[in-house]
C-alpha cells in the first residue's frame, strides 16, 4: 500500500517537474503579462503530500544569473514588493558565506566557497521559534512541516521576526501594492502591518506543482519528503555533504546546503 502510494507520488512529482520546466519561459516573463487562468477545484485533485517537506540547495550549481532567476520567480508569483529601502520585503534572498553560515567558525575557508552566494529563505524549522513566540497563533506549523502565516490573524507585533534566527521574515511597514512591479492577479498581496515570509509554495504543492524556486533552479534545488528514504532530498543528502544554517540554534531547519 505504502509502496504504491510512494510511486504515485514520485510520478506526480516527476510530472510536476516536467510541467514546470515547460512553463519556465512564462515564469521569466512574469505571470502578470500572460493571461492567467484561475485554478478551479479540478486543479487541486492531485496535491503533493509529505510527512516532512524539506529542501536541499546544491550551492555549487548557482551563479548570479540563476540566483536572480530563482528570486524573481518567487517574488513575481507571490507579489513580493521591491521597496528600495531597509524596509524591503524578502521571501527568497541571497548572501555570502559569512552571512549565511555565521556559526561556521572555520578560518581559511576555501576561496570558491567563501565568495559563493547562497540562497536564503524560511527554513520551515521542526522547532520553529517564531511559532512559539507568536501571541495570536497567526504563524503555525502544519503537520507536514510547513511553517505558515495566517495574515488574517497577524497583529504585526514582530515577535516572530525577533524570534527567527535566520532573518527570514519581513514586516510590511507600508502598503506594499505600489511597489509590486508585475502583479500576479491569482495570488493575494499583503497589507500594511503584517509579517510575511516564504511559504514553501503551499498553494502550488496543493495543485501538485513543485515550489517556484525549485522549478526555476533547473535541478539545482531538490525538494521532497525528508522522512521518505527514496525521496529526491534524501538521495541528495545521501550522496553529498550538506550543512544547515545555525544548527546550534536547535531549531532543526528544513533547508540543507550542499557545499
Amino acid at each position, binding site marked *: 500500500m505504502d509502496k504504491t502510494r510512494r510511486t504515485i507520488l514520485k510520478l506526480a512529482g516527476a510530472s510536476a517537474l516536467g510541467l514546470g520546466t515547460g512553463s519556465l519561459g512564462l515564469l521569466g516573463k512574469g505571470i502578470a503579462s500572460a493571461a492567467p487562468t484561475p485554478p478551479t*477545484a479540478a*486543479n*487541486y485533485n492531485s496535491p503533493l503530500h509529505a510527512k516532512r517537506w524539506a529542501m536541499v540547495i546544491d550551492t555549487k550549481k548557482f551563479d548570479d544569473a540563476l540566483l536572480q532567476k530563482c528570486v524573481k520567480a518567487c517574488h513575481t508569483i507571490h507579489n513580493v514588493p521591491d521597496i528600495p529601502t531597509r524596509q524591503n520585503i524578502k521571501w527568497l534572498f541571497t548572501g555570502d558565506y559569512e552571512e549565511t553560515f555565521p556559526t561556521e567558525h572555520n578560518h581559511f575557508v576555501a576561496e570558491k566557497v567563501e565568495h559563493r552566494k547562497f540562497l536564503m529563505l524560511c527554513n520551515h524549522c521542526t522547532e520553529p521559534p517564531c511559532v512559539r513566540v507568536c501571541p495570536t497563533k497567526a504563524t503555525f506549523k502544519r503537520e507536514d512541516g510547513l511553517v505558515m502565516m495566517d495574515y488574517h490573524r497577524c497583529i504585526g507585533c514582530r515577535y516572530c521576526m525577533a524570534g527567527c534566527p535566520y532573518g527570514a521574515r519581513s514586516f510590511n511597514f507600508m502598503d506594499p501594492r505600489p511597489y509590486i512591479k508585475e502583479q500576479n*492577479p491569482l495570488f493575494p*498581496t499583503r497589507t500594511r502591518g503584517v509579517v510575511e515570509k516564504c511559504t514553501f509554495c503551499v498553494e502550488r504543492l496543493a495543485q501538485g506543482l513543485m515550489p517556484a524556486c525549485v522549478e526555476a533552479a533547473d535541478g539545482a534545488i531538490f525538494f521532497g519528503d525528508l522522512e521518505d528514504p527514496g525521496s529526491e532530498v534524501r538521495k541528495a543528502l545521501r550522496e553529498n555533504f550538506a550543512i544547515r544554517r545555525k544548527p546550534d540554534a536547535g531549531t532543526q531547519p528544513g533547508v540543507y546546503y550542499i557545499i
Partner: protein
Amino acid sequence: MYHAKYIIPALLVFLAVVTFPFWAKGKAVYRVELKLPANQTECIEDTETMRTSHMQILDHWRDKVVREGERVYTNAKGVKYSMSLTNTCMSCHSDKEKFCDKCHNSVGVAPYCWNCHLTTPKGGK
C-alpha cells in the same frame, strides 16, 4: 406651569419628530441594485444563502484553506469549487464597485478583504 402655552406645543412637536420613523411609513421598499454576472446564472449556493451568509462562508473558507490546507468546497448540490475569494468569487463578480460595494456601502460595513485579495483574477487594477 409657567409658559405652558409654549412648552406643551413644543413637547408635542418634539414627540412627533422623535416618533416620526415609527408612524410615517414610506411607500418605496429600500432596494440595492446589483450588477450580476452576465455569463453565469448560479452562484455557489442559492441566492438567499449567499445574501445572508456569504460572510460566514468566506470566513469558513479562510480557516479551511489557511489553517487546514483544504482548498475544495462542495456545495449543497455536490458541485466543487476552489475556495478562493479572488479566483472563484471575483472571477464572476468581476466588478467590485457594482456588486460588493453596493450593499456594503448601503449598510455601512467596510470589510478589508481587498486590502490583500485582488479584485479580479484577470489582471489589471
